[in-house]
């Protein structure tokens, strides 16, 4: 049996799944100041009558890190950056306590200027005086050569043991982007302690409940990581809520071709995409609270417009959102909302029709239309807003920069052929929207708890980069901390090394390892080829341990 728990801002959902069946599900309000307590409460409800020793896996999707970053509720972090020449380093003082160190590594990972250890010590002493005990360390081109970051780590271990929490930039991502890597390193360090406390509370609570199953934490890429990993890189768990819901759609729907997925909530509509049953990734890393990071995440765009968004008239025009003033009138609120329009039109038969009608009345009067006409107009407008956003998204995705002639000439444009909708108003709204977008549609059966299902069934993911420079005689996999000497290397061997190294990381996974990019360049100096540069990336892609039994509305 698998336990999946998705902690949202308002509610926490939990499911207990055995093979293809949902055995139990629950929904509780989230206690913002104690997420661990909420989780344990959900666990208790779900397993009340079951034997805890049958639980084989517990997967958690939490907003812990996301919330902490959204609130900028950070303990002091000392940020050490080694930018070398380039963009103005003052632009990357993410922490109030940022020190810029000398030293530089070039694009091929060669040391151009050494680290000045006295300077590092002075910076660390300054942090100590400011009572800072956490350090984030990030150097430009550190995925090409992490030497300086590692040297500082060693210095801290040997001479400054009071800094007990630290993050090295190159371990978080092998991608090149110094500002993003610096932001990611800083944020990761800032959330480490909260994650530690959370994990400790969860472990203790689960032990009290007698649950001994391994616990995994959901990541932004729709995969999971172990608790140990989550203590190293808690930053990976940001945006795991939308990721859970995307994986839930995958678990509960038969997706064919290219699918547009909408999660229609109270105040927002989340838009994501699947191609051949695979969720699409964000082209760059996740952006959170104005921090651009290198955290890999599933593609998800939010539109500030949901079932409970306020409908009003501005300049003689109907307008939906961005405000929300409580529930829809049909569900106990006061002001008109898209949900009320759905109730008036009979598309939603659960809400109170009279209340919905009442709420639309003033709008109808002002516009000189019948209530039904106004309701139609609201639904139409809602659909138009979604359509516009979808067009904008597809435009952006279909014009992603590419760097080879082959890619430029073979770009296949993303064009959805079906629509899947989850969330409260989905059942009422999706058929109309699908008609407008000229797409087939489906609404999964389990939609109110689809996110918890996604969390429960998600499996581990991993990604890794290989960079080889045979002229300098080495290759490395920065995320895994591997550097090896090598005289010669061809692309096929490089791919094999990458696959094997990644497989070692998840010894129990039978999932295929996918090479996501691989290219080799001859280095020519004068008229001689002096070596190869090889760049390759691989992943264990997000997926499900198993699917649920089908059945659509």
């Amino acid at each position, binding site marked *: 049996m698998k336990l999946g728990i998705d902690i949202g801002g308002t509610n926490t959902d939990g499911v207990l799944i055995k093979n293809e069946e949902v055995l139990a599900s629950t929904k509780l309000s989230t206690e913002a100041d104690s997420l661990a307590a909420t989780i344990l409460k959900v666990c208790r409800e779900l397993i009340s009558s079951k034997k805890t020793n049958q639980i084989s896996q517990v997967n958690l999707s939490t907003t812990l890190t996301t919330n902490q970053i959204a609130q900028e509720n950070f303990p002091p972090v000392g940020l050490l950056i080694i930018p070398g020449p380039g963009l103005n380093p003052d632009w990357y003082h993410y922490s109030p306590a940022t020190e810029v160190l000398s030293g530089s590594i070039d694009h091929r990972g060669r040391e151009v200027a050494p680290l000045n250890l006295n300077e590092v010590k002075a910076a660390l002493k300054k942090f100590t005086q400011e009572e800072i005990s956490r350090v984030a360390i990030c150097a430009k081109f550190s995925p090409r050569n992490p030497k300086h970051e590692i040297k500082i780590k060693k210095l801290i271990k040997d001479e400054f043991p009071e800094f007990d929490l630290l993050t090295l930039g190159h371990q978080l991502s092998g991608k090149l982007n110094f500002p993003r890597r610096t932001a990611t390193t800083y944020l990761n360090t800032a959330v480490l302690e909260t994650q530690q406390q959370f994990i400790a509370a969860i472990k203790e609570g689960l032990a009290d409940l007698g649950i001994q199953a391994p616990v995994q934490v959901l990541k932004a890429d729709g995969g999971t990581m172990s608790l140990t990993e989550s203590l190293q890189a808690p930053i990976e768990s940001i945006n795991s809520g939308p990721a859970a819901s995307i994986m839930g759609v995958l678990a509960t729907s038969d997706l064919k071709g290219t699918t547009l997925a909408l999660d229609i909530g109270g105040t927002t509509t989340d838009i994501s995409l699947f191609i051949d049953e695979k969720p699409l990734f964000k082209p760059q890393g996740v952006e959170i609270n104005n921090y651009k990071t290198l955290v890999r995440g599933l593609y998800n765009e939010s539109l500030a417009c949901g079932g409970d968004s306020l409908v009003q008239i501005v300049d003689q025009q109907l307008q939906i959102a961005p405000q929300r003033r409580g529930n829809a009138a049909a569900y106990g609120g006061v002001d008109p909302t898209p949900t009320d329009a759905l109730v008036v039109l009979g598309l939603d038969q659960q809400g109170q029709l009279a209340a919905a009608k009442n709420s639309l009345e003033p709008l109808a009067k002002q516009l000189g239309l019948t209530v039904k006409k106004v309701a139609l107009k609201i639904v139409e407008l809602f659909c138009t807003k979604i359509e516009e956003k979808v067009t904008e998204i597809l435009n952006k995705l279909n014009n992603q920069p590419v760097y080879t*002639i082959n890619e430029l000439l073979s770009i296949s444009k993303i064009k959805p052929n079906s629509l899947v909708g989850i969330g409260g108003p989905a059942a009422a709204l999706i058929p109309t929207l699908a008609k407008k977008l000229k797409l087939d549609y489906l609404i999964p059966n389990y939609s109110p708890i689809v996110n918890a299902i996604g969390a429960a069934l998600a499996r581990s993911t991993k990604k890794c980069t290989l960079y080889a420079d045979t002229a300098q005689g080495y290759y490395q996999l920065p995320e895994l901390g591997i550097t090896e000497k090598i005289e010669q290397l061809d692309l096929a061997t490089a791919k094999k090394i990458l696959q094997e190294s990644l497989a070692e990381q998840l010894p129990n996974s039978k999932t295929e390892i996918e090479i996501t990019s691989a290219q080799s360049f001859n280095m*020519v100096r004068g008229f001689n080829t002096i070596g190869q540069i090889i760049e390759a990336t691989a992943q264990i892609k997000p997926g499900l341990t198993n699917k649920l039994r089908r059945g659509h509305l």
Partner: protein
Amino acid sequence: MNIKAEQSLGLIFFPALDWSISPTHPEREERLLYTKDQVLEEGVLDIEGIKEYNPEVASLADINRTHVCIPNAEEIVTKPHLISAGGAIKAAQLVMEKQVDSAFAIIRPPGHHAFRVVPGSRGFCTINNEAIMVEYLRQKYGTELKIAFVDTDAHHADGTQDIYYNDPNVLHISLHQDGRTLFPGTGSVEELGGPGAFGYTLNLPLPPNTTDQGLHYALDNLVLPILDDFQPDLVINAAGQDNHYSDPLTRMRITAQGYAELNSKLNPDLAILQGGYSIESALPYINIGIILAMAGLDHLNIKEPDYQPEIKKQDAIISDKIKARVDSLRTAWKLKEESDIQKEFQCTDYYTTQRSIFYDTDQFRENQQLKIKVCTDCSGLIEIISSIRPDLRSIGQAKVLIIPFEVCSSCRKEAYQKYQQATEDPKFKHVYLQDKEEDQLLVSN
């Protein structure tokens, strides 16, 4: 941190990582590999206001509007060329449609050695990306557009000069290592334009070992004042990067800072990459410098790994030479309207000349007889007779007629008559008439 560009910049960054002229050629897959790494690692694409776009693929019509390919564009031009030219076109569209304040096309292969008539490839160039872009703009946004080129590649921009030599709406300024010391050899101060655009071609040969000092002297005292006077609608920097002190093919001593500062002062609407073959030590830094400068951002921290301040020092003899040439060009610019064209070109009706153009990539020599009508009503009909030697593909002799923009009716009439005559002349295996006004190329084989 959210850094915002002072001026929005469109970036067409297309390193064509899977394309080379040949495996060890300077134009090979590796050329912009390190630049790509630097661009990605510096995170410039995350700066608000700097937006990346893919190139378009130019059409053969775009090529035929600018060039006369012999025997035809299909046989000369390949997809990588069309993509490079399409990159320049995309950059120009972004600027003209006001989607960005300026645009920089980091594309390859370069274009500035490609002449109007194209029987093959030379100087790593086949078709002239920037000219194709300009002809597209004039066709789409108005023939009266005034364009200024500032070509800062170490090699003389002989191709672009050729295309605009007789075009008074296009000012072409080339700063380059003295042609007596470098390919292609041309670009002396005496080359000032044809009879229809005398004074609108300006060449400043810079002595070998010219540093940032000399380049900026020329910029401050020649380029900027003349642009001020000409008042172009668009300024284009043909941004060659082989003036760099580490470039293996040239002997100049410009730094990444020098390039960045140049773009800061020039503030071009469009920059189009040309040559530059110090792929590890120069290109990554120069390109970041240009990007920042064009976006109006601080670029003072950009430095090559081996940068030493002494590199900026310049020999007094070099400074004196540059000053003298700048003075003579300023005089030429001032006096251009007053000069007697018939006297200057020693002719009455037609200015004729012969020239020989070497195609280093394809290893043949083209002989051209060039004839420009001296016309008081327009810039004048252009006639070219072209043949190559050795002619391994049996292309034979070709005749090319060019009807310029804003042509007068008598030149137009003459062009069509001469085209007709030439098609009946067995001497010519191929006859072409490029009509800029009608935007068409007539071909008779």
